[in-house]
């Protein structure tokens, strides 16, 4: 290595060139220049195929603290997210809702493309936290309890809206959104819209279409539309003729006073046991 430090008969220019250090340095610098456009191209394609996160913000750094932020940048974003999720889970077991929400906000900021985090965060806020404040909130007045519940619904809604914006192709988020709007926020119109959006995604289960129609039936002013949809579903075949669908259809036929000749279902309820025991998967499906 140190051949250059010795006095040699070789001319200094030639010695300089034959020095391994110069050659090594030149290789690295030249390669550095050559690869920059290549890397820019690959980076662009990573973005194109959704293999790059939305930029990690300064805000996240303040939230996570220096070391977790560095780890997240150093290629362990997913791992840090998982650890935070477990911590959030512990907070849940201790019913520390504020802390839990804070941690979950960090998780979704780290892994915005993992639908499961958006989905579960919404579920924790919209269902678990809201139920807890009703049972243990000890508010002096009902109005305050309602307000606290409402605040958690809004949080859940916010998670789902942001989730849908980040991963528009995931039907699960639309389904949870539909559930939240229908079961918690009393918005059948919005719920129906969410179910319908979800039903149009790849891999969506068939029941989302039915859910969309059921909720549409509850949406004031859309009964006619809902009836058409339910009728179309009924006519699709046996697999759609589920008890709930039949009940809804009958309700609408009565409501809209459809002439008996045009009705699909006889006005008196059939006494099949099937009708009295609505299918589990249809009615007890919770997000």
């Amino acid at each position: 290595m140190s051949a250059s430090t010795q006095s040699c008969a070789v001319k200094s220019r030639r010695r300089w060139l034959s020095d391994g250090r110069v050659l090594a340095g030149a290789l690295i610098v030249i390669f550095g220049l050559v690869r920059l456009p290549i890397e820019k191209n690959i980076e662009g394609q990573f973005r194109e195929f959704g293999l790059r996160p939305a930029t990690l913000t300064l805000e996240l750094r303040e939230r996570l603290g220096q070391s977790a932020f560095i780890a997240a940048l150093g290629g362990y974003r997913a791992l840090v997210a998982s650890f935070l999720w477990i911590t959030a889970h512990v907070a849940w077991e201790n019913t520390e809702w504020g802390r839990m929400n804070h941690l979950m906000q960090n998780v979704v900021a780290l892994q915005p493309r993992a639908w499961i985090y958006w989905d579960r965060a919404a579920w924790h806020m919209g269902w678990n936290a809201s139920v807890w404040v009703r049972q243990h909130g000890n508010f002096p007045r009902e109005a305050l309890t309602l307000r606290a519940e409402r605040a958690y619904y809004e949080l859940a809604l916010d998670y789902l809206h942001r989730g849908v914006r980040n991963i528009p192709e995931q039907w699960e988020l639309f389904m949870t959104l539909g559930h939240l709007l229908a079961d918690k926020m009393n918005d059948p119109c919005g719920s129906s819209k969410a179910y319908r959006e979800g039903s149009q995604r790849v891999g969506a289960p068939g029941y989302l279409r039915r859910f969309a129609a059921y909720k549409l039936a509850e949406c004031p002013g859309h009964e006619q539309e809902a009836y058409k949809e339910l009728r179309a579903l009924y006519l699709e075949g046996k697999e759609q003729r589920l008890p709930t669908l039949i009940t809804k259809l009958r309700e609408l036929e009565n409501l809209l006073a459809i002439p008996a000749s045009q009705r699909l279902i006889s006005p008196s309820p059939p006494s099949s046991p099937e009708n009295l025991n609505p299918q589990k998967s249809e009615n007890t499906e919770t997000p």
Partner: protein
Amino acid sequence: MDETPAISLKNVTKRFPIPFRRKAVLAVDNLSLDVPVGQVYGLLGPNGSGKSTTFKVALGLVTPDSGDAFLFGKPSRDVASREEVGFLPENPYFHKFLTGAETLRFFCRLCGLSGAKLTSRVKDLLHLVGLDYAADRRLSGYSKGMLQRIGLAQALVQEPRIVILDEPTAGVDPAGSREIKNLIFQLKEDGKTVLLCSHLLTQVQEVCDRIGIMAAGRLVEEGALDDLIGLRDQIEIRVSGGQTELLQKIEALVTAEGGKVLSIGRPRTTLEDHFLEVTGALSERRSN
């Protein structure tokens, strides 16, 4: 000699810089040396006189600051020149995590041997250096002499025409160094060229054809062994079963012929011979 020498060093100078100082150690100083084919050449010299450095230059392991080294006329810095040479470094170290057999197998593969040829070669070499019994032990458990033997076996892996041995008998027991001595004779008989250095002058004297003496990086004396130390005007006689009478007769005869008896005494057996006699039986047992 009109033949190209097996080893040839021409005006080799090597300095080692001392870190963080402007000075450098002059290890080899303008050294020129030729080892003719088929000879056993012994390099002598005090510690730090540059013997090992000279070997490394000859092998191309160390680049000289000036001068050139050749093996059979090929420059030593060409890797190809090392096809012809086997080297036993001083205090040889090998990968401690390998067994003796694995070590030799590794070196055989480095020299391009494979398959059945490799297996038999490893076996032969282990037998040659008397390590059959320790073939499957890790080198971390080898004694100094055993390492030396593996080092020797390793040097002979590709049946090189030149063998360079840096203190081959260091740490080897008397039986072993006698075996090494015999091995060197055998190599010579097979027409190999041997370059060695050792501090055991009696052994050097026994095996070497030529001697070079180094001091402070310079070759201070060089020549055939007989030329250097042969006492041409003296003769030694050893007699067994002699009585005083016979000795007196011999003495008288020598004086009458104009000579002079310099010493008469009872020669001792050498310590080496005695040692070998005593330990011979035990060594035999160990090898089995």
